[in-house]
């Protein structure tokens, strides 16, 4: 634990975050969150750092998440990435395909309602570097679910790594049937367009998708829900 803190310190992960230091939420972030999550942009954006970190970066949480979802999730944290992060650390071989090694999965800290609300407020203040997310990029057009599904499954291969409905699809990427509840539309659009620009070295490929594809996939994912297709 001490070592990992020193390592984080050495990599510049532990520093004064950019929110009011005296707020309750900021205090909780500092005491409970920064040992696993970066709340300021790390100087080190290497692949090794991706392997070192214990949880997703939060320094742009305010440009990524929907606040109501954050408040809910922090009180009742459930797994979003079926194989955890980084997936390679949480899988093992079997007679058939690789499976999740549940023994390596640790539960996330659970907060009271008051603390969750305070932390959500502090996180929403962390908007990250200017231009990280293209504001207004997603046009909000409704898309045909059958057309979207064809793109998602067959034409662009997203289902290889992501689940568009519970229990079906890949496990190395986050489930997407909860994406609309979790994520801001422009963040989703920007991430699909260039995951590496937001999360350097992440194991999602950058597919050079054309604008209509980006709109279609973002719209399709936002229209998914946990109940759909069950």
């Amino acid at each position, binding site marked *: 634990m001490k070592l990992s803190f020193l390592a984080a310190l050495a990599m510049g992960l532990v520093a004064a975050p950019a929110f009011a230091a005296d707020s309750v939420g900021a205090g909780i972030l500092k005491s409970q969150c920064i040992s696993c999550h970066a709340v300021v942009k790390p100087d080190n954006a290497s*692949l090794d750092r991706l392997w070192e970190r214990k949880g997703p970066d939060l320094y742009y949480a305010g440009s990524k998440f929907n606040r109501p979802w954050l408040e809910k999730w922090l009180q009742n944290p459930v797994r979003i990435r079926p194989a955890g992060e980084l997936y390679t650390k949480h899988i093992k071989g079997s007679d058939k395909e690789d499976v999740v090694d549940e023994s390596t999965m640790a539960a996330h800290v659970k907060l009271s309602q008051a603390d969750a609300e305070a932390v959500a407020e502090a996180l929403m203040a962390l908007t990250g570097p200017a231009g990280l997310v293209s504001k207004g990029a997603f046009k909000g057009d409704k898309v045909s679910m059958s057309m979207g599904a064809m793109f998602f499954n067959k034409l662009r291969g997203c289902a290889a790594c992501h689940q568009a409905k519970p229990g079906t699809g890949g496990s190395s990427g986050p489930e997407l049937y909860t994406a609309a509840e979790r994520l801001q539309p422009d963040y989703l659009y920007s991430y699909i367009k260039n995951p590496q620009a937001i999360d350097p070295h992440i194991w999602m490929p950058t597919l050079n998708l054309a604008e209509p594809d980006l709109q279609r996939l973002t719209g399709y994912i936002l229209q998914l829900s946990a109940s759909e297709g069950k």
Partner: protein
Amino acid sequence: MKMNFGQRVPAFLRAGLLMASCFVFSGPASADEPYTQGALRNYNTYCVQCHGINRNGRGINSRDMSVQPRDHSDAKGMGDIPNEEIFHVIKDGGLAVNKSVLMPAWGNVMNDEEIKELVAYLRFVCNCGSGK
């Protein structure tokens, strides 16, 4: 042969994890290990999700795939593919060589040098010669 390979692989992975904890970056290839640590790290980051921790095409994502990922431990199957084609498919994706869209293009994630090193690593994994 396959069994032996499957038993060898976890040692590579342990080496990879050890490397992660020591902040060691890619070193030169040696005679015993004719691949770079950077290639091993890239494989464990990007390829394992589909091609599997045992490099046998049975990755965590493979269960529901309509086309199964290639078995990198298959000396015959891999031996038939020239280095140029392996490089091309990693950089530009499956569609570029009339294969599955499920193999994405990694050219925006790894540079040409890294992909070349990955090709060398794949030759080590398949134990199928130099591909030249």
